């Protein structure tokens, strides 16, 4: 071909991705966030096979026990083991989070990509509708859902999921607009790629980091929302343990047995903090500006 031997540098190993990653400092947010999330997930998994006591077993003989070797976090006014309830409550929390975030991702991401790729007419209408939904308070929507369909974990999480759609759609739309403005999309169009293929092959992979970050932050919001709903009595109905309902039940004994509020409260805080830190950490990780390639 030409008098150029450009093939030589191509064959020499390029600064490989692994090498670059190891040179990057470990992100403390990511580390702490991932550890807290793993703790919650671990607790939920273990609770399927083992809990110190039956979390739903009412026993008048063991009412309001202080924390001890037998009852690590003590017992509540019905004599149920608080530690076992916190463990099983993690299950509820994660379940709610996954379904809510799943609903929001499954609907919000395609909506955002569509809104970003079809800029005029229908896309515009889509995004205005999205803005309307964004203006609607998530908790209010969930309470309305609970009023119509009855209070249940599933209804609560679908409501939370629907309320989270707009924030996904907005973010993904702005990411999509950015990708659509790149020359590689122009090149794909010039190559004859259909809009659908451009969406699937170029837009989605390039906004996926946004999705992951937003999902972990939304997860934290969903956990809080579920706790709030259960606290208000619109969420998980008894006897399924839920951190929010544990808080509500502890309310009347706040002065005599504050520990009943502290344990689920701390659990909620740990979960929310964990997912938020994980989200922040992932954002730093994916941020191209922090890539130390020069």
């Amino acid at each position, binding site marked *: *071909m*030409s*008098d*150029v*031997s*450009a*093939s030589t*540098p*191509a*064959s020499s190993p*390029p*600064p*490989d*991705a692994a090498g670059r990653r190891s040179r990057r400092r470990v992100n403390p947010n990511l580390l702490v966030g991932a550890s807290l999330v793993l703790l919650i997930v671990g607790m939920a998994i273990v609770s399927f096979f083992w809990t110190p006591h039956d979390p739903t077993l009412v026993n008048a003989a063991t009412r309001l026990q202080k924390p001890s070797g037998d009852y690590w976090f003590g017992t509540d006014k019905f004599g149920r083991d608080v530690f076992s309830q916190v463990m099983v409550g993690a299950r509820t929390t994660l379940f709610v989070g996954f379904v809510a975030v799943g609903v929001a991702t499954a609907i919000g991401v395609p909506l955002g990509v569509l809104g970003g790729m079809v800029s005029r007419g229908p896309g515009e209408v889509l995004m205005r509708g999205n803005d309307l939904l964004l203006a609607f308070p998530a908790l209010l929507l969930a309470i309305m859902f609970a009023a119509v369909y009855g209070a249940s974990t599933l209804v609560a999480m679908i409501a939370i999921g629907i309320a989270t759609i707009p924030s996904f759609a907005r973010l993904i739309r702005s990411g999509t607009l950015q990708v659509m403005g*790149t*020359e*590689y999309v*122009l*090149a*794909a*169009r*010039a*190559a*004859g*790629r*259909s*809009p659908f*293929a451009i969406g699937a*092959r*170029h837009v989605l*992979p*390039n906004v996926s980091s946004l999705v992951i970050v937003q999902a972990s932050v939304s997860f934290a919001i969903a956990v809080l929302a579920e706790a709030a709903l259960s606290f208000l009595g619109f969420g998980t109905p008894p006897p399924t343990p839920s951190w929010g309902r544990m808080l509500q039940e502890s309310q009347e004994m706040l002065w005599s047995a504050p520990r009943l509020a502290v344990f689920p409260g701390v659990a909620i805080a740990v979960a929310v903090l964990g997912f938020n830190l994980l989200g922040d950490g992932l954002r730093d990780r994916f941020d191209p500006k922090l890539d130390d*390639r020069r």
Partner: protein
Amino acid sequence: MTGSVPQGPGSDADTDPVMRGVAATAPAYPAPAGIPVSPDPAAISVRNVTRDYRRPRTSVLRASEPVRALRGVSFEVAQGERFGIVGESGCGKSTLLRIISGLDHATTGSVHIEGTDLTGRRDRQLRFLRTRLQLVFQDPMSSLDPRMRVHDIVAEPLVAQGRGPSRERVGELLEAVGLQAAAADRYPHQFSGGQRQRISIARALAPRPNILVADEPVSALDVSVRAQVLNLIADLVDELDLTLVFVSHDLSVVRHVCDRVAVMHEGEIVEMGPVADVYDDPQHPYTRQLIAAIPTLSKALSGTTAADLTRETSP
């Protein structure tokens, strides 16, 4: 406030393009849309193309003034010709390229590629164009999808046209642009700017196009790599009998690469002709200003100062 170049609004005589050479005046194009025309049509024929963009409204009562990106551009590129388009940012050259490539539509006027009219065709009806005309972009970083392997990038035009990616074809293309076939398994960020531009060229060649449109393909490259890529483009154009449309802000690069050049300014072609003529004896004041402003080594070494570069434009 407008550009800092003191440039009065040209009189009518001023903005009349200066046309020289054989293909200076575009022949009348008789064919109605859709009907195949003369046996050997021009590779590209652009007739009176205008493009207006709507600006977002700033007032509720009044629609805002449209931006006139192209104000009636006509030219023809013969088969196998190397045609340059020169102009500064905002002159309309990128808009023109997109219209030729079927990525944007002209507001008025017509574009024929190898005798086929692009006017009014939707994306789906442009398949023929995708196999005949391909693009190379300016920024070798943003023109390759960072999440795709080189193999998928180069094979994209083949996949899009339902021909299926073949490893041999991709390897063959990579070798044709001076890379190793093994490069197919890597990601774009693992290559230098010049190598990425080679990948971009390999992708453009994949569907065996007749026309290669290059939008500032070397302006983001280092000097030592620029020469390599220019040579590669010249080799490929010769070997594959390509028609080349080469867009640049740098008239001296166009002079090296092309046979004929059109100088664009404010949405119009102000001068067109064989490169040597335009470069050595510019007729339009804007072309003169442009050529005078380009710093070159030989000019500098014979004593041209920065002040001298601006002399054609001194108010």
